[in-house]
């Protein structure tokens, strides 16, 4: 058994053992210290001798431990709210600060987009977690460039947005450090904003490319609240406050409406900057776009999201080929029948009664009755899981941030798979227990045919 498996077995043993030990206590609380001692212990106002004595007691008393476990939550609210308030205090200062910051970010966004247009876009970047029933954007433009952050954004705290987005997002310095998740994502190569990953992975409602799509007011209105929630999920209240609505594909859009929207190459609602960008791209890639329209329409009939990549430096032939590959990838993805809601990533299996759900970071639940009841599964990770694929009712692969790859082959026991690299994975396609392909945020794809022992870069 691999060392990781032994660690996992040991973790399960510890959990059982300590829980059983706790259950063995009377729980009457007769010997337990009162709130004044718990509070003094929490405030570290006890002397060393007292602390050692109560450490011993708490290590064996589940009653006291449960009470103490609630204390950080109670105190944590204070900390979080103060931190949030403090982080945004500077916004309540001089009136000119907000518009000045907005203008600065607008300039940076403009510079970033201009720079991005000069760079080829890796086809893999177009492939992101997508729900099979999600409708692709009628007019797609390339996603954020993998390396644009380093060159165009002066700081990871400044988050790029399309210039036609209704609001500009600025993460204040304090807010940037408010959440590890946020910083982790904002430092990733592809995602231009923290919730991009989530929208492409955890929520998986649309590929990242959709976020650069031309604005549609009604779509924005519908998406505003969900984006705010996603922001808060990923980066806590501080980043939630910073999250602004972004343009995304309307999850509720019908296939027919999306298909009809394909007739328009450039959205009339696009602002001048976006229009000029689109125009220039149109001239270079109009042939490719036209050639792809039929393919996209076909894909739409089968509810497969297909993206258009009007990159200047990519030839039409390559573009078509890459798009065909993406179509295949999405077709594979459809097999996994991944559908996610705003908060929960649901993974369907070929058996409609058996469903998997990622309810929160590190939490996987299973339903054997079509979603009526859910049973939590033990997984040895607390990382955010972004995507999953279940080729059979018993086999399921899930991937997430920080190189998280988990697999079950018997429908209950989850095994941590060694990742090909410590990076964030936003998509997984699985053909069975041994064969799977994972996609990282920078578009790179890695395949394994031996259950994750060896990985190779997928073409």
């Amino acid at each position, binding site marked *: 058994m691999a060392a990781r498996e032994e660690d996992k077995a040991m973790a399960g043993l510890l959990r059982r053992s300590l829980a059983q*030990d706790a259950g063995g206590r009377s729980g009457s609380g007769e010997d337990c210290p009162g*709130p004044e001692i*718990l509070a003094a212990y929490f405030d570290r106002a006890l002397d060393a001798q007292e602390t050692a004595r109560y450490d011993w007691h708490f290590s064996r008393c589940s009653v006291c431990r449960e009470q103490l476990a609630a204390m950080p939550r109670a105190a944590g609210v204070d900390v979080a709210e103060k931190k949030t308030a403090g982080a945004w205090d500077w916004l309540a200062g001089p009136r000119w600060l907000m518009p000045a910051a907005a203008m600065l970010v607008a300039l940076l966004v403009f510079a970033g987009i201009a720079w991005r247009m000069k760079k080829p876009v890796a086809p893999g970047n177009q492939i992101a977690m997508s729900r099979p029933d999600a409708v692709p954007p009628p007019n797609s433009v390339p996603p954020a460039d993998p390396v644009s952050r380093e060159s165009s954004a002066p700081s990871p705290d400044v988050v790029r947005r399309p210039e036609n987005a209704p609001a500009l997002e600025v993460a204040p310095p304090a807010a940037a450090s408010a959440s590890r998740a946020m910083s982790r994502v904002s430092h990733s190569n592809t995602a231009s904003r923290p919730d991009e990953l989530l929208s492409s992975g955890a929520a998986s409602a649309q590929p990242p490319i959709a976020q650069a799509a031309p604005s549609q007011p009604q779509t924005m209105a519908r998406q505003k609240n969900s984006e705010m929630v996603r922001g808060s999920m990923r980066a806590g209240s501080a980043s939630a406050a910073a999250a602004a609505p972004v343009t995304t594909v309307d999850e509720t859009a019908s296939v027919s409406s999306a298909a009809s929207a394909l007739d328009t190459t450039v959205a009339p609602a696009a602002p001048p900057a976006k229009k000029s960008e689109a125009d220039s791209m149109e001239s270079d890639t109009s042939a490719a776009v036209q050639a792809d329209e039929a393919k996209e329409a076909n894909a739409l009939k089968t509810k497969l999201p297909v993206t258009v990549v009007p990159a200047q430096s990519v030839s039409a032939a390559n573009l078509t080929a890459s798009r065909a590959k993406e179509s295949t990838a999405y077709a594979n993805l459809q097999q996994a029948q991944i559908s996610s809601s705003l908060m929960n990533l649901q993974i369907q299996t070929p058996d409609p009664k058996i469903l998997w759900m990622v309810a929160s970071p590190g939490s996987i639940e299973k339903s054997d009755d079509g979603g009526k009841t859910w049973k939590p599964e033990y997984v040895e990770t607390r990382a955010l899981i972004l995507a999953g694929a279940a080729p059979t009712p018993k086999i399921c692969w899930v991937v997430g941030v920080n190189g998280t790859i988990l697999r079950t082959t018997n429908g209950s026991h989850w095994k941590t798979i060694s990742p090909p690299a410590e990076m964030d994975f936003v998509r997984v396609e699985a053909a069975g227990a041994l064969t799977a392909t994972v996609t990282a945020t920078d578009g790179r794809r890695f395949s394994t045919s031996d259950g994750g022992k060896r990985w190779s870069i997928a073409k």
Partner: protein
Amino acid sequence: MPSSPAGQFVSIELARGLLQKGAAPAEWNLTVERFQLALERSVAHRFTSATSHLSGGASSNTLSNTPSHASPDARAIRAYLDSLHAADLALACACSDGNAAAWDFFMTRFRPELYRAGRAIAGESAGRELADSLYAELYGLREVAGQRKSLFDYFLGRSKLTTWLHAILAQHHVDGIRRARRTEPLEEGEAGEHAYAAQQSSLANSAASSPDLERNRFLAILQTVLTAALDALEPRDRLRLAYYYVEGLTLAEIGRLVGEHEATVSRKLERTRRKIRKHVEGALRQEKKLSAAQLQLCYEYAREEWPFDLTRALSQEE
């Protein structure tokens, strides 16, 4: 609550100085003598509870007035008094006495915090109810021997008043949950007991007659060895493990509780896990004479579902 004769530990001058430090407003009508009494009680609790072990607070019985140390060190008492949160203790005294101005101050300053903490502990809907349930006890609607007994009487000033209120909220919340656990399954109790008995019976049967006898034996050995390894841990190490594995706290929350950075918590947790594993594997190899292959089997079996009290089931059978 321990008490002591007035002036035994705290002189009136010392009480006056601390009251001034607490800066209690005049409208609270808090006298030096009253504050001295509260200080005496706090000192008595601190320096007599050493022998009373882990008693204290609302759940403890009244301690003997005889201090464990015939005469606590004056410097230790002084240091203790200086460490008290005098302002919070003064407010608690005034509120306990039922002073309206003090109550207004308390409600203005602490009620939002109470609601917020209640929501954080018990959730959005039950949080407010949890916080509201405290007011009656804080005011002292309960009478003991014809005298109003306020929860504020139990505040000793050793922690911030806010933390103390959090602790009371946590205590009420956990008490409520435990009460619910005790009362809810009453109707199902018999069925549950039958199921448990059937489970134990089947376990015992399987231990004796199942072809998988080896599995049960290995698991029982593993449990015994692991329990011994856990018992050998330092309390703080065991506490971290329990917070992590039983209470499901995050590293940051554990760090807040044990006064360590979350990176330190993570490192120490890992070290403890390694230590336990080394202890367990050593014991399995040397004491239980298991081979490397059998050790691997133990881990394999441990990954599956099994009741941890298997030893009991097996010993009953034997």
